[in-house]
């Protein structure tokens, strides 16, 4: 079939000059577009410009307040002990720093509910980039056997939101690929490259009431360090609770409402998938990253198991190749006795299935501070 369209008939030679002229006009404009966009994106989100007015009561906001408060906190010497962790890290720095001075160390915490070891690594990198600020870092673990769960920590997209203000272009090489699902890898990659995608919801809320947001962010930036430091914990308890671990039954006191009973039941007796070592692999990787960050710095990394439940569950046979047991032999790594906090596993000291209440947190803080003092010895700096 004979073609009758000049798409395929016009001689190439006729077009060369046009092509050159076109290139001269088009490419500078494309380059200008890319540069302008990169400049706008960079100024807004790759500096502290926007992260300082992010909604304080949000995932990113909480994390940024914690990190900024800790970075700003005066550290006259290196006798500083910093706790990282999630909501079960029950250290109350005020209790050990003010009520019971004498350890010789100043305690601080950047623990935040919902965070994971991946978040802890990047948080530590942010508050201690040269690994010279602290005598010790305290890192919690839930279970030395590290069973797999359906809530696989590696797949938590929220980690990206906690860390977005702290992730840098160089993290494109690692952070996204620590997620397993391809979709999350893409979301994380795009998020670090173009942070606006992660800040989107926050930005739209900001547009609704920009002045009120700025005022709120300033207020939190000024005052939140005191609020966090003064936090004392929850006053209620699960007193009267009895757990039959063998038959997986719980007897509740009458004060506990029905919906909380279900929550407690589900938390204490979760359905677990067959253990394929995914959790252990994940923890090995991120504990390894933290250890690598502090290698040779003289900072002790103190790993400890948090109180597990309102009554002590029976011990499962130890998983000898768990990450926590394997790192115990590394230099400057200290794994505290697994049963150190068993004495706190009492319903009077818990306010829900996993979290210590005020007396529980205070007791926890004293035990931890004394143990840290024992491990570190007298202050050296």
């Amino acid at each position, binding site marked *: *079939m*004979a*073609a*009758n*369209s*000049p*798409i*395929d*008939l*016009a001689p*190439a030679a006729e*077009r060369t000059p*046009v*092509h050159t*002229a*076109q*290139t*001269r*006009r*088009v490419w*500078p*404009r*494309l*380059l*200008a*577009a*890319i*540069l*302008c*966009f990169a*400049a*706008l*994106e960079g100024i*807004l989100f790759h500096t502290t410009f926007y992260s300082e007015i992010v909604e304080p009561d949000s995932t990113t906001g909480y994390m940024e307040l914690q990190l900024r408060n800790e970075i700003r906190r005066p550290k006259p010497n290196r006798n500083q002990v910093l706790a990282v962790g999630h909501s079960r890290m029950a250290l109350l720095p005020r209790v050990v720093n003010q009520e019971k001075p004498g350890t010789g160390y100043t305690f601080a915490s950047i623990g935040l509910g919902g965070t994971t070891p991946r978040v802890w690594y990047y948080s530590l990198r942010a508050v201690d980039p040269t690994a010279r600020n602290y005598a010790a870092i305290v890192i919690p673990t839930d279970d030395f056997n590290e069973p797999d769960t359906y809530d696989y920590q590696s797949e938590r997209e929220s980690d990206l939101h906690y860390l977005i203000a702290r992730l840098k272009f160089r993290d494109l090489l690692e952070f996204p690929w620590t997620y397993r699902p391809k979709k999350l890898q893409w979301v994380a990659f795009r998020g670090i490259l*173009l942070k*606006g*995608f992660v*800040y*989107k919801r926050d*930005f*739209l809320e900001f*547009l*609704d*009431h920009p002045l009120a947001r700025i005022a709120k962010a300033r207020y939190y930036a000024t005052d939140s360090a005191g609020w966090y430091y003064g936090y004392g914990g929850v006053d209620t308890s699960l007193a009267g609770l009895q757990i039959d671990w063998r038959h997986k039954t719980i007897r509740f006191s009458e004060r506990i409402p029905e919906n909380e009973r279900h929550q407690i039941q589900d938390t204490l007796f979760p359905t677990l998938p067959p253990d394929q070592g995914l959790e252990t692999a994940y923890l090995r990787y991120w504990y390894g990253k933290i250890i690598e960050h502090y290698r040779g710095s003289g900072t002790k990394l103190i790993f400890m198991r948090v109180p597990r439940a309102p009554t002590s569950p029976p011990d499962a046979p130890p998983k000898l190749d768990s990450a926590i047991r394997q790192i115990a032999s590394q230099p400057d790594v200290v794994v505290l006795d697994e049963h150190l906090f068993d004495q706190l596993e009492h319903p009077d000291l818990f306010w829900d299935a996993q979290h210590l209440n005020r007396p529980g947190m205070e007791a926890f803080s004293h035990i931890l501070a004394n143990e840290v003092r024992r491990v570190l010895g007298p202050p050296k700096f």
Partner: protein
Amino acid sequence: MLFNTPQFFAFLAIVLTLFYTAPRGLRKYILLAASYFFYMSFIPKFILLLLSLTAIDYTAARWIAWTHSPRSRKSALVISLAANLGLLGFFKYYNFFAANVAHLLHKPSDAFALSIILPLGISFHTFQSMSYVIDVYRREQEPITNPIDYALFISFFPQLVAGPIVRAREFFGDLYHWKRPSSDDVLRGLLLLLLGLAKKMVMADQFAQIANGYFADVSKHTGMVPAWSAVIAFGIQIYFDFSGYTDMAIGMAKLLGFHFPVNFRRPYLASSITDFWHRWHISLSRWLRDYLYIPLGGNRHGRLQTYRNLMLTMLLGGLWHGASWNFVVWGGYHGALLSVERAFRRENAPVESRWTALHPLQAVITFALVMIGWVFFRAATFHDSLYVLHQMLFVPHGHILIPAWLTDLALMTLLLALLEEKREWFEKVALGPAWAYGAVCAVLLLAVELIGYTEAAVPFVYFQF
């Protein structure tokens, strides 16, 4: 593969690369293959329908041009129209017809219903194909001898699924006198592509959240304030959705060396309903004028005939949008408004009023009338339409549904529309200094990134037509 997805942009990049690096003899085949691939990325089996219609209309046009017998010419035309309208009627209107028959026979509405999926873009490519065959029949268009060229005309991916409805002489003019796009066209094309994406994701998809929330259950909100705000949200959604799609289609065509007609010219600045239809979905209005309104007699046989022709054209135009009485009412409503305007307009008065002190008031009234029409277009049922209209006109309370930042955004786009109307900023930016081009592109990109709705790729509204 929607225009507003990363997959589509990857597809477009591959097509552009192949098109401009392939030997010239292969280029139109690349475009055709890409167009069929694009179409099959939605529902592959409907490619058979597209191929069949292409073959029928190509053959019919060749037959019309070849034969000298008026009877044969007419037969070929009728066969072509019957094939197009028959398939369009079956896929789009069968269930509507069946439901009405069932209603008349007091049977359940789904008594005669079939499970039919509407082939993507059927309303657009059948109209485009019919216009070609009719033009050949009228001897206004030479028949296309090369079936590849004709297949490309029907399936060209930038406008395959939602227009603009391109006339054969425009498309083949570009194809047969194809020139590598000038740098101005490349710059215009890229800017249009970006502008269209921003219109869709920033404006249309955000306002859709409000309109969808309201129209999902209209009884949840009472009062004229939520009703007006939801209807205005829908008015903004559908304009930015459709014109965004069109901008992207025109932009892509420019990058490939083709020139599509303008489809929207700031319709919400119109000073009358007549003016509105000169600015809204222009390629469809033009089609309806040339192949329906004028053949019906247009305005050549007195006022009453003109009103009848306007009503018929708009009723069918309404029905073209979808198979429901709501669309018929919407078309009839516009037909009635056009007739009323016609009745009060002086003969030979210009449709587009000059910008006078009265223009803003006229534009506001026109806007309000168009919004009232959108109620029928958007509401799920006729009953819902009446309920919303009642709320809009007679229930004076309620809370505005549009958040402040979206209102600000809408006002900014209104300002941009006014500036384009009076100062043509788009052309100045497209052909202006590099910094201005770069800055506007950067702002559009940032808007897509920050404000664009990215929870999911939302299909374009007109894909369903």
